[in-house]
């Protein structure tokens, strides 16, 4: 390798290859899942303007996912400060290959979705815009590295790009543009890329010689603010926490580190949702739909929170348990229990926030007399809010448990396995007629439910055998599962549209509610004693 660009491209590919492939598959799976769920309700009108919003959301999601995968693979930039190349060359050849990877991923994503669902979404323009978004995010990340403004700068860059992208996307999606106008559309993109590049060079150059992008005056102000906040909170002396037992200490550890995630995500997504409604819709009838979307946001929050809660690694990029935690003198069972307790609290808090959100909006809707959508949806069914809580718990628990294992290869195999099974079912469905497709869907539901049940039962048996769960706890879990399954089955079969397939799936999901109690100690044991 005798050139800097080649060496840096090789480094990028080597470092982020697996993460990018995995993220690409996951974003694609997510997109396909949404598309197939849309299509399961009948044929989708691809020219409908709402599809534009769907594609827009999917591309932004893809940019975020792939961008995170690329940047997390690079880790800190400080390790390259001593390379014998000037800052401009470094920044240029870190940005260009990453932008190319991003562009390629967006094109492949659009091609795959087109192949599976027959949509003819615009491809070239997103493939040009997405890398620019990445460049803006990279410029913000590198320029404010190790400063308190890093997150803020990324949010600002993301907001600028997202707003502009959403604004221009409408014209691109709805109108077949003349090539000359298309070229004009490319000009601001180029300008944004150049500005990002210059900004990144400026910021990175200052960091490289030990200067913060923030002036020393800014640093002083921020430090003073930090001290003032600390003084307001604790006065002159910070009170050290006092613990009565190892379990309470471990609960505090886990709670300080991870409990904020779920409620934080839920608050952020619900706030964005309401702000977006205020900015673009302002239609009271749509608020009931936003309450349902809020439920989906809780599920996404549950998933992300599971990844945070289940990570016992030293850093976010490593899932292997660090030596500090591994050398705590407590049993694997007690350690797992502390994490589960934090998960329970985070779930209940997040669910409470969502409940308050729904109560406030419902009150507004009742007060204004706009109750049509509210009464038509599932929001006022008795099971809706308990189901949201249980589902959120299940999602957090399953993802946290998977992450708790701390074995990256195992995680990759599980994710790839799920993707492969899903794609297999989906591609088979493409070849079938409507009735066969319905049957396949029912069989898949039943099979998923049975697999969930078998896996949970197996995990409980192993846990009891290895004495990480007592026989009494196992029996209680069995009783709870019977109760939950019975309620779910009765409710489904009581409903005219209910089916045995859905009932089977819910029996499996009911078992997953209890899965973390047995699986978490086992996963932790596997991670801790390698």
């Amino acid at each position: 390798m005798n050139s800097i660009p080649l060496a840096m491209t090789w480094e990028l590919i080597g470092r982020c290859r697996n993460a990018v492939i995995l993220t690409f598959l996951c974003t694609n799976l997510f997109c396909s899942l949404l598309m197939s769920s849309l299509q399961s309700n009948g044929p989708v009108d691809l020219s409908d303007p709402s599809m534009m919003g769907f594609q827009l959301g999917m591309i932004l999601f893809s940019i975020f996912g792939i961008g995170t995968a690329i940047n997390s693979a690079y880790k800190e930039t400080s390790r390259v400060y001593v390379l014998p190349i000037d800052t401009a060359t470094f920044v240029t050849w870190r940005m260009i290959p990453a932008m190319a990877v991003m562009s390629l991923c967006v094109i492949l994503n659009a091609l795959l979705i087109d192949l599976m669902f027959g949509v003819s979404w615009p491809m070239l323009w997103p493939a040009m815009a997405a890398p620019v978004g990445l460049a803006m995010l990279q410029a913000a990340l590198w320029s404010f590295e190790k400063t308190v403004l890093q997150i803020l700068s990324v949010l600002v860059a993301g907001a600028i790009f997202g707003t502009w992208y959403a604004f221009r996307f409408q014209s691109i999606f709805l109108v077949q543009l003349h090539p000359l106008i298309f070229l004009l559309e490319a000009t601001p993109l180029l300008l944004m890329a150049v500005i990002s590049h210059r900004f990144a060079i400026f910021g990175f150059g200052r960091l490289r010689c030990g200067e913060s992008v923030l002036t020393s005056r800014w640093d002083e102000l921020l430090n003073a603010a930090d001290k003032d906040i600390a003084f307001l909170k604790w006065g002159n002396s910070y009170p050290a926490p006092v613990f009565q037992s190892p379990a309470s200490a471990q609960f505090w550890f886990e709670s300080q580190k991870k409990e904020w995630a779920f409620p934080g995500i839920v608050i952020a997504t619900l706030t964005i949702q309401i702000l977006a409604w205020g900015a673009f819709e302002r239609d009271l009838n749509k608020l009931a739909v936003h309450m349902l979307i809020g439920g989906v946001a809780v599920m996404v929050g549950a998933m992300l929170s599971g990844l945070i809660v289940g990570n016992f690694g030293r850093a976010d990029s490593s899932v292997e348990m660090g030596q500090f935690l591994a050398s705590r003198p407590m049993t694997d069972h007690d350690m797992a229990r502390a994490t589960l307790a934090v998960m329970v609290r985070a779930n209940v808090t997040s669910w409470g926030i969502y409940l308050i959100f729904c109560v406030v909006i419902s009150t507004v809707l009742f007060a204004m007399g706009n109750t049509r959508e509210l009464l038509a949806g599932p929001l006022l069914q008795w099971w809706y809010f308990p189901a949201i809580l249980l589902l959120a718990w299940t999602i957090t628990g399953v993802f946290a448990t998977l992450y708790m294992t701390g074995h990256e290869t195992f995680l990759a195999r599980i994710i790839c396995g799920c993707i492969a099974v899903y794609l297999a079912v989906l591609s088979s469905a493409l070849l079938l007629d409507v009735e066969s497709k319905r049957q396949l869907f029912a069989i898949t539901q039943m099979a998923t439910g049975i697999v969930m049940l078998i896996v949970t039962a197996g995990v409980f048996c192993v846990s009891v055998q290895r004495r990480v769960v007592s026989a009494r706890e196992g029996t209680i879990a069995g009783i709870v599962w019977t109760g939950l399954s019975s309620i779910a089955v009765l409710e489904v079969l009581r409903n005219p549209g209910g089916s045995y397939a859905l009932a089977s799936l819910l029996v499996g999901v009911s078992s997953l509610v209890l899965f973390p109690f047995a699986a978490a100690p086992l996963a932790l044991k596997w991670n801790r004693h390698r």
Partner: protein
Amino acid sequence: MNMPDSAESIIEIHDVSRQFGKTVALDHVSLSIPRGKVFGLIGGNGAGKTTLIKHILGMFKPQTGSVRVFGLDPVEKPAETLARIGYLSEDRDLPDWMRVTDLMSYTQAFYPGWDRDFAEELRETFDLDRNSYVKSLSRGQRARAGLLIALAHRPELLVLDEPSSGLDPVVRRDILGAIIRTIAEEGRTVLFSSHLLDEVERVADEVTMIHQGRIVLSQTMDDLKLQHRRLTVRFGTPMTQAPAMPGMLTTEGTGTDWTYHCSGDTSQFAVAVESLGATLVAEDALSLDEIFVARIRN
């Protein structure tokens, strides 16, 4: 190999092997660590020292063989074994988001024997601000914070993985050395790994040398010194290569004067020298550093 009486052993490692992919990290290692001694584990980078320590702490499950610490399996009984161990990790893994005072309170909860006064004394000796965040500590301060929480509960067994790394010479020589000696004098055991051999030589009672996952030597420091000698021989005629001698590990020299680094009984060496018509002109003890190099080269 001079193995101590297993009845007095605090750690018993029997035939432990560990492989990472195709790399053999530990190859049928057996070791017994006596109670109340300072035990030095030496070896080059990647020799298997940390892997062995992780087995002792239950972080690794032996692929073959068994590990017993205080007579217990550290994988099956982590709470019981780790409560009696103070551990300083090589990578100084500490939670960055905690303040020093949080770290002390949190750690205290796990150890009933936590000595508050001693912890405070150590904090002052190590010059650690109680309100500082761990992430703001320098590498040396981090090592001291790790040492503080490893020592403050007065553990029966202190395990230090490369304790000197990051410590300045004053702390390393005066404080660390003193702590290790004090603990040993109180009848407790210290196991520490290092590749700073002068430090090991200064404080260890027993030494185990590990190389490519295998134990190549395990002896008391006194025996080690006694059994490894530097012998300078003068031959009648210049030699291009030193002739082989009993117990020879390595040689260096040119012409008539050659220096042998040997192990074992030197009387046979003396007989061999005489039979070759050469003269033994000097004999003295090898430093641990020289023994290590000789053993590894051999």
